[in-house]
Each structure stands twice: as C-alpha cells, then as structure tokens.
C-alpha cells in the first residue's frame, strides 16, 4: 500500500509549515498554529495507548505536567540549555507513566473504567507532590530568564518550530505504530485482551510500552509548553483541561486511525476559535463538554471511524467466499507443514505430559489430579458430560487459568503457571468454543496476530498477513479476508477460530467444540480439514460432543467426569467400558 507515501507526505507538510515563520507572518498566527500543533501532539500521543489499546487515560495531564515541570526546573533553576531539557522531560514523563502502569496493569481486575479513574487520581497526586516539595513549593516557577533557542526569526517562531518538530515526530510515531506488528498487538488488546494473550501477544509489556511512548511524547510537548507559557503553576498545569480536551479531540476524530486525533484537533481548535475568539475560556470548556456529549451519543466511532467503515472493501480478493462442499469445492494447496512430520496415527513419543493437574473454583473442584499424555501426531479425543472439566482443562493448559497444582510438560519444559502468551509461544494454540474474534480487525489481521505472536512468531505485519492468507485459503475464508468478523456467519467464525489456531504452526492444537452448531455437511468438511491438519504433523486435542466425528477422527479417547479422569484408551474400548456408559452416555442420551 502507500507505505512510503504517508511519511513522505508528512515530511513535506512539515517542511512547508516550517517555512511559514520566514514569511514574516504576524506573531498572532504563529501562536495560533503553535496551540493547534500543541494539541495535535497531546491528542495523538494520548491515542497511542488509549485509542489503539483501548485503555482510556484521564491522566494525560499528569504526564504532560511532568514534562512541564521537568523542563521548567532544569532550565530555570539549574540553568540547563533549554533544548537539553526536552529529552529529559520526555524521559521523566515516560518513567512516571511506566511506574504507574507497572502497578496498575499488574492487577488483573483493572480494566478500562478503573484505569481511567486511577490515572485521573494520578494527576492530583502529582500536583500535590509537586506543590508541596521544593520543585514548586506553591508560588510557581518563572521561566522569563530562560533564553529561547534561536531557531526562527523570533522567539514565538522558534517555539512554533519546536512544537512543529514535536508534532511531526508524534504523527510519524503514531503512523508507524499503527502499521506495525506492535500496533496490531495493541488493537488486539483493544478488542479482546484475554484472546490476545492466548494468541501470544505479551499484553502486559505491550501496554507498558504504549504507555511509555505516549507519556514520553506528552512530556516533550509539556517541556516546550513550559517555555511558551513562561510561568508555570500546579493549578494551571494539573487540571482537567488537558485530559478533557484530548479525549474529546481523539473521539471526535476517531481513535482507531493514526490521524484521527489530529483531525479532531484541527476541527476543535477552529470551532473554539470561531466561538470564543481564540481564548480557551469559560465558554470553551462548556463547548468542549457539549461537543463531547454529542460526539459520544451520535458519533462514537469518530470522523475517521465513519470513513474507514465506508471504505471497508467487499470481495477484494475477487471471488465470493467459496462454500465448503466436500464433493466439488476447490481444494487449496496445503500450507507447508510445520516442524515435526508425523503422518497420522500417533507415535509413541510424548508431546504433552500432564501430571496431577488440579484446578478449583472456590472449593468446586473442576479438575482434580488429572494425569494424561498426548503423543506426537495423534488426535486425542476429550469427552465428558457438561461440567466434567473439559473446557477447564483447555483453559488451564493454554494458560487462561492458573492451575492450583500439578505440572504440564511440553517437549521437556514445564509450562504450568506460565503466562498465556508464553505458552502460545511454546507452541500450544487453542480455539474458543464460542468464537472470540477481534471484532474490529479484519479477518486477515485476526489470523495475522496469531501468525506474528504465537509459535515461533513472524517479525513483521507483512509476513504475518502473508502467512495468514495461506491459512484463510486452507479454511476457505480467503474471500472474506478484508471483512470484519461481524460479517461472518457462525460456521465461518468457527473456521476463523481454526485458522487463528493454525496460523502459528503450533505443535499442539486444543480444539474446543469446533463442530458444535454446524450442519452435517459443514461437519463433514470440518472433519476432513482436521484430518489434513493432523496429516501435516500437528498434534490435536479434540473436545467434542458430536460422536460420529469423535469416532471417525480420534486415535485415543480420554473421558472426564466431575473433574477426574474416568477412562482412557482406544475409542471403541473406552466407549464400551461400563463406567463410561453409565456416567457419560447414560446422561447424554437422557
């Protein structure tokens, strides 16, 4: 796509705008443009965490303020040359952000709302600390004596040029992240954090990284702004104007687009200018509030959101989605087999060795002391009545739940208790019984996430998408590659789950009722696909209620009942054992 055009365009725009001060504009225009650029930096940097990953911060004012006070203190009290204070301002803001994030993101219960409130509290705490210590001490800090670096013909134009550079940097960073592997991971976190973690996205580290980048840029803007206002007080720095305005601008422009916040900024700045004569005064705050209310109610996706939606290409890949009909459907080429090349039946070599695995929920024993082995290249069926612990088994082995006891050895490494993303990297993939696609990412990118992050992992978004396309062809979803998951029907969503699980070329796939809810023809197709997956050397644990498919596919069966293993062995023998007949079939046939 236009991978070079956007940064080039930004650079040209930056250079053109950089030439403005030399045209001898009145200082008033420079100040106005300065303010617009200032808000572009703040809104765009806010968006890198809050828009991309969905963790709305109300504390952007705190990180901005950290930059303001760092630059003010270093320049006014320690007489540093001003330009040297800016990197430090960015670093200090990033460090505070990472400190807050390291505590807040570690707590599992902290989702969007709580994060927003906590960051709001950080603003006032930081204000308290700064106001009470010699950093400010109450009266504020004057920067009158600090010389403005001579970059342009006048001090105002120098400030304008500095902020222009910061804005260009911020937009480039925002654009680059949006179109990177990192950015795709952030979007996955936005849509479904648990599923992202299971696909191998290191959610904790990614959120911290996004917060650090976001804070650093806000700190940079704060540093420059300290010199612009030249008199810094806690009351003026740490109030709600910054978070309120920034949230509004980003929402109005669209938080899922790299340029959304900037476009929102331009719109709001012009509106405010038209209404209040350029003063961010009393009415301005009310106007911002009103626009925010209207925006939330009528345009939750923002301007760029509407545009992106309208542009969603349909049937880009040419053909309409091929209906899977086993008799005469086109047979796509199998993707190259993953490492490990068993050809069905299973070997005697053990891939997954589960020893004494237990999991209980407040005294309810969902799994008690389960030990089983999965051999390389086999399809192991996992049966049991509802509530017997099958799904819990998958959730514990894939790292979604922490086990209460026991060990899970994969290829000679104990993976029990590791974070889910590390288990995904070690080579275990899973599907969800109820499909959990990333709702606002295309089908292609849904699969690319797994290809980039799980298993051995691919280093770039392009490579991930290329790999993902192969698996979409394998699951007959290639025609839907650029649709959103919401446009898929149930069976296509089930196959999307399958494609996501396979895209990482896992050693072991845990399939959680992939056939449930499909029609007989669709089941037939799916069974063939699963057999082909196994024939490529992938080991499969197959949880299913559809008995025909179970008997047709599995090499061995394990039956659970009330969290304990009831029977294990060849499918026919297991199904005829009296214990299984009474515990499982007796109930299931009732």
């Amino acid at each position, binding site marked *: 796509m236009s991978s070079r055009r956007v940064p080039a365009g930004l650079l040209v725009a930056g250079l053109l705008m950089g030439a403005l001060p030399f045209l001898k504009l009145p200082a008033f225009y420079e100040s106005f443009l300065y303010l617009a650029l200032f808000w572009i930096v703040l809104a765009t940097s806010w968006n890198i965490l809050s828009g991309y990953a969905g963790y*709305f911060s*109300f504390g952007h004012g705190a990180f901005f303020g950290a930059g303001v006070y760092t630059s003010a203190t270093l320049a006014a009290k320690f007489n540093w040359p001003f330009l040297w204070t800016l990197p430090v301002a960015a670093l200090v803001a990033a460090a505070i952000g990472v400190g807050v994030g390291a*505590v*807040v993101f*570690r*707590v*599992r*219960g*902290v989702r*969007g*709302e*709580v994060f*927003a*409130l*906590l960051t*709001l*509290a*950080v603003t*006032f*705490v930081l204000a*308290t*600390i700064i*106001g*009470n210590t010699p950093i400010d001490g109450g009266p504020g800090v004057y920067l009158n004596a600090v010389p403005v670096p001579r970059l342009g013909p006048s001090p105002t134009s120098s400030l304008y040029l500095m902020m222009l550079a910061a804005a260009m940097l911020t937009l480039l960073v925002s654009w680059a992240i949006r179109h990177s592997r990192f950015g795709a991971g952030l979007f996955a976190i936005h849509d479904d954090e648990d599923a992202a973690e299971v696909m191998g996205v290191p959610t904790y580290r990614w959120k911290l990284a996004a917060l650090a980048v976001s804070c650093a840029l806000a700190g940079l803007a704060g540093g420059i702004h300290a010199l612009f206002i030249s008199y810094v007080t806690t009351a003026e720095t740490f*109030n*709600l104007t910054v978070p*309120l305005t920034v*949230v*509004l601008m980003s*929402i109005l422009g669209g938080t899922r687009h790299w340029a959304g916040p900037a476009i929102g900024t331009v719109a709001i700045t012009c509106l405010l200018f038209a209404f209040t004569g350029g003063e961010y005064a*009393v*009415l*301005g*705050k*009310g*106007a*911002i*509030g*009103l*626009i*925010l*209310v209207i925006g*939330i*109610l009528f345009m*939750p996706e923002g301007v760029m959101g509407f545009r992106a939606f309208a542009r969603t290409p349909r049937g880009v890949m040419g053909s309409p989605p091929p209906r899977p009909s086993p008799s005469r459907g086109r047979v796509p080429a199998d993707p190259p087999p993953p490492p490990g090349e068993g050809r069905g039946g299973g070997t005697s070599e053990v891939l997954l060795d589960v020893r004494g695995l237990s999991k209980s929920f407040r005294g309810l024993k969902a799994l008690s002391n389960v030990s089983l082995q999965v051999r390389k290249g086999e399809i192991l069926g996992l049966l049991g009545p509802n509530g017997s612990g099958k799904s819990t088994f998958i959730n514990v082995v894939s790292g979604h739940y922490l086990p209460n006891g026991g060990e899970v050895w994969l290829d000679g490494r104990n993976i029990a208790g590791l974070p889910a993303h590390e288990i995904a990297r070690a080579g275990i993939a899973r599907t969800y019984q109820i499909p959990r696609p990333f709702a606002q990412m295309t089908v292609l990118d849904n699969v690319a996430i797994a290809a980039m992050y799980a298993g051995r992992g691919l280093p770039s978004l392009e490579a991930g998408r290329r790999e993902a396309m192969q698996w979409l062809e394998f699951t007959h979803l290639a025609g839907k590659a650029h649709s959103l998951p919401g446009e898929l029907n149930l069976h296509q969503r089930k196959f999307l789950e399958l494609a996501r699980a396979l895209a990482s070329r896992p050693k072991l796939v845990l399939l959680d009722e992939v056939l449930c809810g499909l029609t007989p023809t669709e089941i037939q197709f799916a069974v063939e696909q699963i057999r082909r997956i196994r024939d490529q050397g992938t080991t499969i644990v197959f949880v299913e209620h559809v008995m025909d498919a179970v008997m047709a596919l599995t090499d061995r069966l394990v039956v659970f009942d009330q969290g304990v293993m009831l029977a294990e062995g060849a499918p026919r023998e297991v199904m005829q054992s009296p214990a299984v007949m009474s515990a499982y079939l007796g109930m299931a046939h009732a």
Partner: protein
Amino acid sequence: MSFPSWTLLSQSVLSGVFAGALYGLLGLGLGLSWGLLRTINLAHFAFAFLSAYICYQLAAVSHVDPLLTLAGIVPLMFALGAGLHWLTDRFRLTPFSSLLLTFGCMGIVESLMQTLWTADPRKLESHYAEMKFRLGPLYLPIPEVLTLLLAVAITVAVWAVLRFTDLGKALRASAEDAPVAAAFGINQRRNGFLLAGTCSAIAGIAGVCIALSSSISPSQMYAWVGVVFAAVMLGGLGSALGPLLAGIVIGVSEAVTMAVTSPSWAPLVSFTLLILILLLRPGRIR
C-alpha cells in the same frame, strides 16, 4: 514532625468522621448507579455542586433558610438524574461511554457555574454555621453534625429498601441479570429512572451539606472525584453501607495525616488507599 496533642488529635478524628460522612453521602449514589445501573456518573459531582450553588443563591441572596431549599433542590436533581438516565438508556451506552459522556456533562456544568457565579470561591453565611456544640474540649459545628446525621439516615434507609423491599430485590436482580429479571416481570425502565433520580437527589442533598459547611468554587468539584471514587471502590459497588463506612475510614486517615504532617498532603491518602485496595482485593471491582 511533632506529635499533636490528644485534644487536637481527637478533634481531627472527629472532623475526619464529618468529612467521611460527606464522602459517603456522595459515594452512595455514585456507587449505586455504577453497581446497579452500570452508569459511571461523573456528573454526580456536577449535580452536587450545582445544588450547592442553588442553595447558596437562594439562601444568601433570597434569604431562604438553607434547609428549606432542599424542597426545591431534591425534585430538581431527581429530574436531572432521570433525564441523564434517559440518555444513557436511549443510546445504550456502555459503562465506559457513560463515563465519557458524564465527563463532558461535568465540563458543561462547570462552565455554566463559572458564568453564573464566577470562578471565585463563595461562602454561604448561615445562622447554622454559627451554632456550635461543645463536647468537653471538642467542637461540634452544627452543619457537620447535620451532614453526619443525614448521611447515616439516608444510607440506612437505602440499605433497608434494597434489602427488604420488593423494589430493592428487583433492582438487585436487574443488576445481576437484566434479561432474566425482565422475564420475571420486573419493570426495569421504571426502576432505572427511579434509581437514577434517587441517586442524583442524594447528590443534591450532599450539595446542600457542602454549601453549609465549606466554601465552594466551580473547579473544586474535581478535587472530590478521587476521594469519593476511592470510597466507592473500597466500600463495594452497589453496596449501600459500604461507601459511608469506607468514606469515614478515608476521612479519618486524611484528617490524621493533616494533623501529623501538613494539610496539603491529604490527597495522597485516598490515592494510596485506592492503590492498596486494587492490589489487595482486585476481585471486588467489577
């Protein structure tokens, strides 16, 4: 740092209890609408301060008895709260969108108040403020005592309604599982409006208490956000008694901090408590 005398310490514990009563009164409606209606209502603070200003206007300028202003403020706030609920309900806002929406409302109300009453602090001089009890060496200002009594009475009343009446059971059932509750014949629309209106009416009462006991300025409402949310989270979402108890714990800790160190460090207390709650009991906030 010198250790203050016992009299000073008990006086500050007492003032902490009074402050905590106000946190609890504000937190009550906030926590109920978060826990039972899934609306995180930042406008709650705006409603409280708007009430405080209306009380100030009526009492200081028109010489109405401050407590009588409640007769007008309570229905007005009830209507505002129900109106806001109509918006969140009509547009099916998620808790998060409701937070953003009410964040915007806060800005609107702030600018309205600044336009009408300016940004300068206003103080209501009422005859209540001059009345003080003496209990041994301790002072008991009437407005604060009144706040405490109101907070306790309202909290207990709300608790009893939620606990013992059909309405309370219906509200809790709807919060637990709305579709099932509806299938059992619960009129959720009516209950939702009733609860949202009541929450805002309580905010109105809290606003009058604020006007009686301290000076008010529009931007001051933001200072309450952190501490009241801390009380709500500590007390538990949707709980009636929790916010008051948690509010008093926070109020007393703040007051003692102020007595031992300096007043400006107080905001750190609620934040530290909030972080500790999150780290130690993450399961409670859902």
